[in-house]
């Protein structure tokens, strides 16, 4: 016999599952919607979802446990998550976090007893040029300061619905500071689709080859080769996937493209569909950009109404292509293309074994092109303007332009479009970074460079990047940033392979040990050894790049470590004296004999 309450739960779940056509591939979207209604996902709720989808409960539980934004423990009606990238920290987010917790009388990461609110932290939300930022129930808050938090605390206490909060709290600026061929030239909607219909897919592929366009997500795989591989792969059903899971801390250029140039991105996807023979596309939009969802859906509908999407595009009965948007739920690893595909299929995001690659075995094991937002937008332009036009900019191996997301210590943070080959120094001058001591290029997974290297060029031949460019000025402690990055990787490791799952925690502990003044030269050597293992042994790019910030900074900023080291050759990872506290309490001793002095501590700790 079902209790009334649980039959209401069944109703709720059934309704949502049916709205998603009871498709298991929609599991992540279903869980998001269910959570929106119930604030969290209880074991009972998850079992109901499994039942309604006729899938094993453990699959549903695995997905719920994997994504940061899915909660398997109760959360407040208002769920506030402060973005905790180093750029948010530079802007004082920690102080604001504590301030709001005090105002609301709630501990960090805890739900207030009355169930009203939870306040916690999350990985970079992509608002580095307008932070400190946060999410409230998944919606972006920007430019936080104490007066704004005072107001937010009042709105929470009065249980004011989000729709009635001041709109300016949610305002997201585009901050385009420098435009070149991608952002600067007008694009007539449908122009790329007319081009492919007029000239044919082969001719468009020729233009892509001429253009030399490479994946703008950072890996730099040639677009033409990827599209051709998928086009030639056997099978009638193929897919186009746009990777808008822009999770690399410090990157926000895809957010601006999705906000201001969504048509261009959708046009690039539709073009790709025509070229490779796919009729279906997905945008995998990172959960942090949920605020964009409604406007993106409206844009898709407008394109359908205008004959640029759906069936019979531009009146051609053989040109059929439509796009769905999938929303992520807080998992950086899903930016890796095979993990992203797993997530699209409704699973937890663990990267697949490759080969086979997505161009032959992608979504539902069908041939799939996965490209970054910027890549699709650029491809649409190339289809109209031609490959030579694009290739006239850039360097020998890196044609065209690149969008950079500038943040950190500079006067004009925002989006800058440069031809490939621009020097770091030029970028710093343009954004008003007068006093830079170092740059974290391409995010924590990229490389940290010091002032000695500011004449290096941004291109695949030298400094490859997905677009993140975080500036640290002379007032900053580089190790604050490094420690922040090691925490990021611990949080974002998917846990599949040993060296990443365990290595990220070991690295965080080593950096913390040095940062807090307990490290020795031995620990620096340990970091190098551990980092080397992770770089070569991890299953995917996340783990392979996770030690980069530590290894780079050891080389580029040795003094940041050296000045914190103890003079001894070895320090234990634990505090021996503190470890004796239990024994002192049990025996009731507080005399000096019950404490180790500094000398004892060292002798006891010698290897």
């Amino acid at each position, binding site marked *: 016999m079902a209790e009334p309450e649980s039959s209401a739960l069944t109703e709720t779940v059934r309704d949502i599952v049916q709205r998603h056509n009871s498709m298991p591939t929609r599991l992540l979207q279903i869980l998001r919607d269910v959570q929106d209604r119930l604030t969290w996902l209880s074991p009972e709720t998850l079992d109901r979802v499994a039942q309604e989808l006729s899938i*094993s409960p453990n699959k549903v539980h*695995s997905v719920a446990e*994997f994504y940061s934004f899915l909660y398997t423990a109760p959360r407040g009606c208002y769920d506030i998550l402060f973005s905790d990238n180093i750029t948010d920290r530079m802007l004082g987010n920690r102080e604001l976090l504590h301030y709001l917790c005090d105002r609301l009388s709630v501990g960090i990461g805890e739900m207030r007893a009355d169930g009203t609110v939870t306040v916690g932290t999350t990985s970079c939300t992509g608002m580095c040029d307008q932070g400190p930022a946060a999410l409230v129930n998944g919606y972006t808050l920007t430019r936080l300061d104490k007066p704004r938090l005072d107001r937010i605390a009042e709105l929470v206490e009065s249980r004011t619905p989000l729709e009635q909060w001041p709109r300016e709290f949610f305002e997201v600026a585009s901050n385009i500071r420098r435009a070149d061929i991608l952002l600067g030239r007008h694009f007539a909607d449908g122009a790329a689709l007319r081009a492919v219909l007029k000239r044919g897919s082969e001719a468009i592929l020729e233009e892509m080859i001429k253009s030399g366009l490479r994946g703008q997500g950072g890996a730099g795989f040639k677009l033409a080769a990827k599209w051709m591989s998928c086009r030639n792969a056997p099978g009638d059903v193929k897919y186009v996937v746009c990777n808008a899971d822009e999770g690399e801390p410090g990157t926000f250029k895809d957010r601006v493209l999705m906000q201001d140039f969504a048509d261009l991105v959708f046009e690039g996807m539709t073009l790709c569909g025509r070229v490779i023979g796919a009729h279906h596309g997905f945008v995998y939009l990172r959960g942090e950009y949920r605020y964009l969802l409604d406007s993106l859906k409206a844009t898709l509908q407008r394109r359908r109404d205008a004959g640029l999407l759906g069936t019979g595009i531009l009146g051609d009965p053989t040109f059929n292509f439509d796009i769905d948007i999938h929303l992520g739920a807080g998992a950086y690893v899903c930016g890796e293309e095979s993990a992203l595909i797993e997530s699209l299929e409704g699973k937890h995001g663990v990267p697949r074994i490759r080969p086979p690659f997505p161009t032959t075995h992608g979504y539902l094991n069908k041939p799939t092109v996965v490209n970054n937002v910027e890549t699709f937008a650029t491809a649409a332009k190339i289809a109209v303007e031609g490959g030579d036009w694009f290739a006239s900019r850039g360097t020998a191996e890196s044609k065209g332009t690149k969008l950079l997301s500038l943040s950190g210590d500079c006067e004009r943070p925002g989006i800058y479009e440069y031809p490939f080959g621009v020097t770091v120094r030029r970028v710093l001058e343009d954004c008003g970074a007068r006093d830079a001591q170092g740059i974290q290029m391409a995010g924590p997974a990229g490389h940290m460079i010091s002032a000695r290297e500011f004449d290096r060029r941004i291109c695949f031949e030298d400094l490859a990047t997905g677009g993140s460019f975080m500036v640290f000025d002379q007032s900053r402690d580089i190790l604050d940033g490094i420690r922040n990055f090691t925490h990021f990787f611990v949080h974002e490791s998917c846990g599949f392979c*040993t*060296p990443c799952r365990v290595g990220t925690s070991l690295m965080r502990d080593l950096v913390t040990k040095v940062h807090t003044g307990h490290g020795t030269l031995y620990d620096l050597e340990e970091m190098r050894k551990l980092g080397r293992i992770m770089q070569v*042994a991890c*299953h995917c790019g996340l783990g392979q790049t996770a030690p980069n910030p530590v290894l780079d900074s050891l080389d580029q900023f040795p003094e940041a470590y050296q000045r914190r080291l103890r003079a001894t050759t070895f320090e234990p990872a634990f505090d021996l004296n503190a470890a004796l506290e239990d024994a002192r309490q049990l025996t009731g001793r507080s005399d000096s004999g019950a404490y180790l002095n500094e000398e004892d501590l060292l002798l006891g700790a010698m290897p």
Partner: protein
Amino acid sequence: MSEEPGFTLDGRRIPFQDGQTVMAAALEAGVYIPHLCFNPDFAPHGSCRVCLVKVNGRMQASCATPAAAGLTVESETEELRDIRRGILQMLFVEGNHVCPACEKSGACQLQAVAYYVGMLNPHFSHFYPRRPVDASHAEAVIDFNRCILCELCVRASRDVDGKNIFAVQGRGIQAHLVVNTPSGKLGATSFSIHDKAAQVCPTGAILTKHQGYNIPIGQRLYDRKPINVVGDVAQLPESKGGRRHD
């Protein structure tokens, strides 16, 4: 009959058939590459990373790398031994592995591989996680402290036994083995010690009850000979190219 294609592993020619991985071909040729999550009876998983080899100069998991003619594969090098030892040490500090107190000692793959790669201490700081033991089942006990997340029991129960009793949940360092029942207890499942899932654990995480130390410590499989000699590499029939190293 044309000659089978082959690749080179530490200077030795290894023949392979189309579709075989480097690991599978090596195993068939009687050459041991250290591994934990790989088991010849199952599709490759690629998570433990112990079977890392250098393929044409690039590090790759041999269990997940398709064999190809002309590859140059390195396995028994100082560099790889160091990396494998590091990975083993990570597994040892992540869980609670107390070999002297473990019924599996001497018959444990984790321990045997650790010996094989020359691991003499855990090196890293122990995490000392708190993981309660599940003794709810009449015939078997699960000691989660010893789980290395190889997912062999998950795969065996799902793909061979058809019971789908185990799963790994959680992300990152929180990833952990769970039993698929509302209570999370093995006793509430249809698990049997005759299941494939009961036979595949490479550590002492899944143990049969009521039969402690039938074979005395010191006389167990890996007590007598190292794992490269008596492991699954030795189980291959001579007809399939199986050849003992001893």
